[in-house]
């Protein structure tokens, strides 16, 4: 009998990998920034399933909210589409 948190862990491993790959093949950089936020959130939940909840909370704040915010400011200051 597999525990529930391990099923959640497998789902978030899949999400982190494909979020990162999809973020790199976008032409629109704002979509890429949003997918980076998704990847950070998946890694935060993965820390939670790996029994490190303090790291999970910090990653959810910094990696999933603050980092896409400053990336979005950079995209706003420069050009949006990749040349």
């Amino acid at each position: 009998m597999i525990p529930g948190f391990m099923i959640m862990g497998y789902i978030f491993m899949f999400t982190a990998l494909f979020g990162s790959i999809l973020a790199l093949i976008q032409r629109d950089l704002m979509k890429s920034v949003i997918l980076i936020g998704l990847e950070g959130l998946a890694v935060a939940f993965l820390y939670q399933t790996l029994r490190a909840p303090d790291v999970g909370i910090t990653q959810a704040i910094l990696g999933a909210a603050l980092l896409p915010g400053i990336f979005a400011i950079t995209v706003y200051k420069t050009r949006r589409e990749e040349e």
Partner: protein
Amino acid sequence: MSLETLFQPMCFLTAAALVVVGLYAVIFMDNLLKKIIGVTLISDGVNLVLITGGFNKIVAIISPEMYEQGVKSTAFETLTEFPEFAAQAAFPLPSALVLTSIVISVSIFAIMLALAIRLYQHYNSMSCSVIFKEVDE
């Protein structure tokens, strides 16, 4: 091999794949923002390796004899399931280190993005090949 025993190796594989994808982005992508995104992926992969290494089956706090016969705590008389708890607990050192690493990496990314904005204002492009061509002239 069940899914339960494969959980920790799959986490290691995910971290390795994140590092590989990040290295590919840093080396082969042309846009500056995607290079910085690659550095964030490498940072996430390395943090995930450290956290996964301290996941379970690490009984570092109590000795094996104490693990066999159980620990009688003086403060908590009813605490008889302490060895099972210790067998399931995570090693606390990597989480303490990675907590510092995440905070430092976010500030480093802020500095990198600020430098990217300055490069865009100076050369009026985010493409690395255009910037290198203008540097050579």
